[in-house]
Structure formats: structure tokens, C-alpha cells
């Protein structure tokens, strides 16, 4: 478990500039290590470099300075590119722009086909991946007739068919409705729990990051904060300064504390928040409306 999956050392990157303008540094000497089997969420406002970082993890982009090692392989070694991409799968934002076929199972088969996997094993992998994301019954459907959440699940299956050790999700829920978001997040947690995959989730949604083991906050090409969700979300002011929100529950407790109530600062979900409040009111004997607090605990 303590193996290093990804080791980034002093990574710098800039996009080639248009004529007459200086290139803009997107990553500026970023150093990071990710443990094998861990679930890391990467937060950051637009332009903080988080998607650029993601694209370095499977050699879609190559470092302009510094180095990226994926399972011990240097991404700059051209002959290792396929091996690296096979190990590190990547799921993008828009499912429509990832799906290559008009038939679900043919799409899922795309990656193993590229890898030259023998046909019977492709069938095995496709079925396994589709079952994993709960889309096996839809294997002969046309993706464009399915819902956004279902399409994204197919895109995930397409990546899982490579049997990667690590999956990078680049804002996989940004284009989905709340239901689709639930479906996709369910699969991400399952991937981590049942398959022990290393998961890197790039996201805008604090509630999604709250369930990771480790949260990395990026700002202008560098790691600004790094720690457990509890540690990171406790720094409400610092997060706000970086243009990020905290989960609503944490925000509530933070505001209450500012009003002088002695409540714990960090709660990652509604239940924990309600529990903390109930405990506080019980302790002070000042129960404004206990039943409502209880209901809060079940709601949301």
C-alpha cells in the first residue's frame, strides 16, 4: 500500500504562446508524490493548472522541466508511452467526446483492441468492465440514446477495460445532472474500495473531495494546500482566498464559531454536522428545537 504510484519532481509546463506574447507558465515546479491505492482529490479554481497536471500523469503532455514518474516509468521515455497509458486510465469531462463507437460494447473494447489483447480476452474484459459500472444490460445500445450519467459510466468502463492500476478523473461530473453525478461518484468509490485502484479525482465539487483520503489544493501551478479533507477544509479563510468554497456544512459551523459558539470546525457531511450541533446543544442545555436537528440528520 505504501508504494509510490506517481512521483512528480519540480514539474514545470507552459503552453506554446501565440505570436507576440510570452508563454504563460501553467505549472511552476510542482512536486508531489501519490501513494499506490490512495484516493486523492485535486481542487483549484479555473486556470490553477489542475487539468494540465492530470494530462502529465499519462504522458498526454510531457514535462518542460522536472520529471514525472508513473509506477517507476519516466513519462519522457517514448517507448514507454503505451505502457504508461495502459496503467493510468483517464476519464474526461464530456462523455460524448470520449466515446468512439455507436455501440456500447464496441466502445468499451476500443482500448484493449489498441493494446492488441487477444479477442476472447477482450470479450472477458468488456463484460467485466460493463458489469462493474452497471451497464452490462446496455451493451448493445447506442450511447447517444442513453443519459449523460450512463454515457459517462460507459466512458469509465472503456478505461477500466485496460485494467489500469490508476484512474485519473478530470472533472467527470461537471456536465452531469445530480443523478448522473451520484452514479459516477458511486463508481469512483467502488473502484477504490473493491479494486484497490489508485484514484485521482479532479473536481470543482467540495462534497466529492470530502470523501477522498487526501485533498490537494492547487493555485497558479503549485500545490497550495495538501492534507486530509478535514485538515484542508478547516482552513476556511485560506480556501476562500484561493477562490474556493468549503462544503456547506463546514461553512455553517465556521459561521457559528464566528458567532462565538463552541462547535468543532470541520464536518464533512450533513450527518456529521447535525451530530456536532446536537452534541453542542445537549452540552449547553440550550436546545432550541431538538426535533428539527434530528430531522436534519436524516435529510439531505
Amino acid at each position, binding site marked *: 500500500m505504501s508504494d509510490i504510484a506517481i512521483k512528480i519532481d519540480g514539474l514545470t509546463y507552459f503552453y506554446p504562446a501565440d505570436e507576440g506574447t510570452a508563454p504563460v507558465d501553467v505549472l511552476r515546479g510542482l512536486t508531489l508524490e501519490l501513494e499506490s491505492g490512495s484516493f486523492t482529490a485535486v481542487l483549484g479554481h479555473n486556470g490553477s493548472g489542475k487539468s494540465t497536471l492530470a494530462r502529465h500523469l499519462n504522458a498526454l503532455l510531457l514535462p518542460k522541466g522536472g520529471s514525472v514518474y508513473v509506477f517507476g516509468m519516466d513519462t519522457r521515455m517514448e517507448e514507454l508511452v503505451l505502457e504508461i497509458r495502459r496503467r493510468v486510465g483517464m476519464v474526461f469531462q*464530456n462523455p460524448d467526446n470520449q466515446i468512439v*463507437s*455507436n455501440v456500447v460494447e464496441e466502445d468499451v473494447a476500443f482500448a484493449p*483492441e489498441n493494446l*492488441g489483447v487477444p479477442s476472447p480476452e477482450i470479450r472477458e474484459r468488456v463484460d467485466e468492465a460493463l458489469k462493474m459500472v452497471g451497464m452490462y444490460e446496455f451493451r448493445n*445500445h447506442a450511447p447517444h440514446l442513453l443519459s449523460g450519467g450512463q454515457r459517462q459510466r460507459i466512458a469509465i468502463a472503456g478505461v477500466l477495460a485496460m485494467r489500469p492500476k490508476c484512474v485519473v478523473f478530470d472533472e467527470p461530473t461537471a456536465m452531469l445532472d445530480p443523478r448522473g453525478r451520484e452514479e459516477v461518484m458511486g463508481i469512483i468509490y467502488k473502484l477504490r474500495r473493491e479494486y484497490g485502484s489508485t484514484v485521482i479525482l479532479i473536481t470543482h465539487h467540495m462534497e466529492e473531495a470530502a470523501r477522498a483520503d487526501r485533498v490537494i489544493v492547487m493555485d497558479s501551478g503549485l500545490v497550495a494546500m495538501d492534507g486530509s479533507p478535514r485538515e484542508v477544509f478547516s482552513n476556511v479563510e485560506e480556501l476562500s482566498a484561493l477562490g474556493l468554497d468549503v462544503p456547506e456544512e463546514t461553512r455553517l459551523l465556521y459561521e457559528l464559531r464566528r458567532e462565538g459558539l463552541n462547535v468543532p470546525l470541520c464536518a464533512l457531511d450533513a450527518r456529521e454536522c447535525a451530530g456536532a450541533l446536537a452534541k453542542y446543544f445537549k452540552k449547553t442545555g440550550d436546545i432550541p428545537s431538538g426535533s428539527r436537528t434530528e430531522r436534519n440528520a436524516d435529510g439531505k
Partner: protein
Amino acid sequence: MNCSALRGGAAVLKDITLGQYFPGDTVIHRLDPRTKILVLIVYITALFFAETPVTYALMALCLAAAIWISRIKLSVMVRGLKPLVLVIVLTSILNILYTKGEPLFSFWIITVTREGVMNAVKISVRIIMLVMGTFMLTYTTSPIMLTYGLELLMGPLKKLKVPVHELAMMMSMALRLIPTLIEETDKIISAQKARGAEFDTGNLFEKARAMLPILVPLFISAFRRADELATAMEARCYHGGENRTRLNVLKLRLRDGMALGLSAAVLGGVIVLVNMGI
């Protein structure tokens, strides 16, 4: 009024069934794509040999049988023909006007001849049957299988340095993106209409100009999509046709031989019948 116009626009786009595939499990669906492509070529050849009513009837019978076996709904077939109405009407009119022969009736400077009408009917039937036959191929064959079949059929051209795999992949991506781009066009039309754009008024020139606010965003988004799709394909280890394997390996079976034999027989029959003048 706007609302109905909106729905009208969407309906027209839904009529585009090009490149659509209707999954199924009939004999025709299961035929090897190579067989289907070859049978289609034979069918088209036969269609151009067919001259007489009997031979046309024979071809129609074959087509009807194929449609019936494949369980593709006739309404779907007819819907796919809609965009062709203009082409058919135009060729018919030209044929009626410009074929010389025994005059049926004259009106002003227009003389309609017997041969002209016959020609118009023949050519209309030929176009309709041609298109329906082609639909049978795309409706019953998934794009990936279709391009796989083409890739294999064109395989020998690789020796001439023709980039067969790349061509096949391009075609497969084009087919894949048709439904997505149709959906996109629909959205853009709705968005422009919501901002007060009018697409149904004015003369032909004004209507064409009104298409501009649809085409520009559509092109921009198509390029962006292509870029993202290429990145996603690379992320899934795509590196050209080398060492690629397939989920479903194509194998010619007895049914393929029978289908090819049958279509060759029909072609032969049509040629013989036409030469006998039947």
C-alpha cells in the same frame, strides 16, 4: 408559432438517418460486413442492368425480402427517403421534359412524351431502391463492423501504400459523430431561435444567410470535439492500426457464401432476362 417552428426544425433533423444503426439479431445483422458490402455492390450493379418491369419487380422482391428478414420497420426506411424527395422530383421533371419520343400531350412549349414518363418512373424507382439498399447496409451493420469490413476488403491496397486503416478509422469517426452533431445542431437552432433568429421567413437567399449563425458555432464545436476525441483516443492507447486486435473477429460462414451466391444468381438472372427482352 415559434414553438411549432422549433419542433419542426427538430423533426427535420431527426429524419437524417444516415449512418444510423439499428441493433438486432437477424440473419442479416449477423452476416459478415464484407459479405454485406459485396452483396450491396452486386445489388447496385443488378439495379443498373434492370430495364424491364419484370426485372424491376424481381429486384423489388429481393429488397422487400431483405427488409422483411431484417425486421427494420418500413416507416424507418421511408423516413430516411424524405430528404431525397427533392432529388427524385427534379430528376423526374428533367426526364419528362427532355426525353424525345412519342408525344402524349403538349402544353405551350412543353411536350410530354411516353418515353419521358417511362424514364422518369424508372429512374425514380431506381434511386429509391438504390438508397433503400444502401440503408439496409448501414441500418443492420454497426459503423465499427462496417469500417472493419471495408478495411479488410481494401486490405490489398495497403501494398500500394494506401493508408487503409486510417481511412477506415476516419470513416468510423465520421459515422460516430453524426448523431452527436445532429443533437448539437438542434441545440444551436433552439438557442438562436430563443434569441429571436428566424429561419423560416424570407426568400431563399435570406434563408441561407440565416443558416450562418448555426453553421459557425457548429463548426467551432465540431473542431473542439474532434480535438477532445483525439486526446481521449490517445489516452486509451490508440496508436494506429499496428498490432490492433478486435473484439469480434470476422469469419466467413456458410450463410455468407449463401448470401453471395444468391445475389450473384439474382444478378445473372436480371442480365439474362433483360437480354431476352423480358
